[in-house]
């Protein structure tokens, strides 16, 4: 049984301008201890998918239209808020892009970490403080006995992200959702944080769903990868297979458009046009207007996510 299993998830936003479908028919699984990458450009629905799993969608404007989300066999969408609070932070943790705005500036990091722990475990404050210091040490914070009483502003960006990771992992969850965890960090600090996540995964055995726009990070970090475009998963496979034999023209275009250290200088291949906004998605395949491989069928009928596992893609005219 998969640790996390999502089937036919569709999410829409309802604003003054009417209803907009954001995520459409998303299905995937994450196995225990697996690292899965969810990649795509701004607005492709990758963060909304993550927020749906965590039950953190803004309830006033968003609606889950259909689908199921199961964690360890338990259907998350059927849980009430109180029951969801027991799962969130305990069985699954999340880290965000911006470590500065995710920490409360008016409390010490120790206070915030102890709060996260005592919400789920009945521990005395001395015991909790001990666990927190141990966790800070595990995520590579030097002098944790001293750091525990510091405020977020006293820490650098890299240290704050380590504290966020400690907070997400304090109850030893089985799933960590990391939403662009290194995007706001410098490249040398990014390398440190990715190494840390790999180390913690081995140490604690949790699965990681890594949300990112960076195909380089995915290649070095993940085992399996899901590519999203305009609210849908358009290709999924193992990391080796995706980079060696991308089948969807969008995946190929994305890989080609990336400037690389190893590629010669000069003109870069591009994907013409821009991603269609949620209200303006075309009929048929959402990539049709930007695709060099499109045929008549592409603009009338949606291609299903098809093919022999592990490599599946949603395209009528896949790249050979």
């Amino acid at each position, binding site marked *: 049984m998969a640790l996390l299993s999502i089937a036919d998830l569709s999410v829409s936003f309802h604003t003054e301008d009417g209803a907009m479908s954001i995520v459409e028919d998303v299905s995937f699984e994450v196995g225990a201890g697996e690292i899965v990458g969810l990649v795509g450009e701004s607005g492709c629905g990758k963060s909304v998918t993550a927020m749906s799993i965590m039950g953190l969608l803004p309830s006033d404007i968003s609606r889950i239209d259909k689908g199921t989300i199961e964690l360890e066999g338990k259907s998350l969408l059927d849980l009430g808020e109180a029951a969801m609070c027991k799962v969130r932070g305990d069985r699954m943790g999340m880290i965000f892009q911006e470590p500065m705005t995710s920490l409360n500036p008016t409390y010490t990091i120790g206070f915030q970490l102890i709060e996260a722990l005592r919400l789920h475990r009945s521990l005395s404050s001395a015991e909790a403080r001990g666990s927190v210091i141990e966790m800070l040490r595990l995520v590579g914070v030097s002098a944790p006995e001293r750091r525990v009483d510091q405020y977020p502003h006293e820490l650098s960006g890299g240290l704050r992200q380590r504290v966020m990771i400690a907070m997400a992992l304090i109850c030893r969850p089985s799933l960590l959702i990391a939403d662009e965890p290194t995007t706001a960090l410098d*490249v040398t600090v990014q390398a*440190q944080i990715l190494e840390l996540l790999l180390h913690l995964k081995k140490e604690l055995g949790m699965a990681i769903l890594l949300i990112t*726009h960076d*195909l*380089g990070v995915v290649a*070095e*970090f993940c085992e399996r990868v899901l590519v999203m475009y305009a609210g849908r998963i358009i290709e999924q496979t193992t990391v080796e297979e995706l*980079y060696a034999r991308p089948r969807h023209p969008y995946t190929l275009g994305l890989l080609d458009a990336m400037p690389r250290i190893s590629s010669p200088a000069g003109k870069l291949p591009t994907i*013409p046009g821009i991603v269609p906004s949620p209200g303006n998605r075309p009929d048929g395949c959402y990539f049709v207007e930007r695709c060099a491989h499109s045929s008549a069928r592409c603009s009338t009928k949606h291609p299903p996510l098809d093919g022999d596992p592990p490599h599946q893609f949603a395209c009528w005219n896949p790249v050979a």
Partner: protein
Amino acid sequence: MTALLEVDNLHKTFATTGRGSGIRAVNGVSFCQQKGETIGIVGESGCGKTTLARLVMRLVEPSSGTVRFDGEDLYGLASAAMRQRRRDMQMIFQDPYASLDARMRVGALVAEPLVIHGVGDTASRRNEVLHLMDMVGLPRDAVDRYPHEFSGGQRQRICIARAVALRPKLVVADEPVSALDVSIQSQILNLLMDLRSELGLSYLFISHDLAVIKHICDTIAVMYLGEIVEMGPAETLFAAPRHPYTEALISAIPEPVPGRKSKRIVLSGDVPSPENPPTGCPFHPRCPRAFEPCSAQTPVPSVTISDGAEHRVACHLHS
């Protein structure tokens, strides 16, 4: 080739409230840019690359040092003369959402530099604006629309049209593609390369992204804590980096090649604060190859010539 830009021993220290000697943002930077050359300045947050760009544009005044543009000392110019000079030097910023006036139509935005410098009359400016829109790949009907109607990539095209409207000699581009998605980033990089050959521009291109820098630049300068630690031709610098920081920076970039991770050099710690920089070599506290002189003496840059171009490195390993 003649030098377009000569930066000599430039320093900038920002005053801070309270005790301390201030924030040392740029510390003794010197380089020379030829006409038609694209120089990339790369470094992590807080290394002083944006301050350097602003010093070159004279948007901030230096603590000491000189910048000569086309042979003329920029800091010696009176404000009216400086304004004239800016015709030849224009800037593109990182965030195309913040750098365009939301209440102006695109036509007026692109025409603004022409109006400020009194180029042409209303009719000829209108034609020139349409010509510029073609040049940067914006639809002509965009002239009567507002910035909010455009995506990030298209807004960056508007900013580029403004920057090249006066046919400058130098364009300082500060992280021009950092806010854009990969598929849009490549479109904008290609446009910048096209304009360079079409208009004979020279770019001073600032970025934290080494892959982007390598793609567009002839020469690369690596900055760390306000200093250029290594500078040389793009190909040489990547093939044979000489400074341990450059080496670590290159190895830290995640490449879309599964299984490459084993070669990565992971630096410990964070970049020190420019408010309290270390003694000696600024990189020594994080350097995997530091030895005795590194913490005591500032390394003197040593220059080698490879393929007829200068390759400069400030490191005790090479002195």
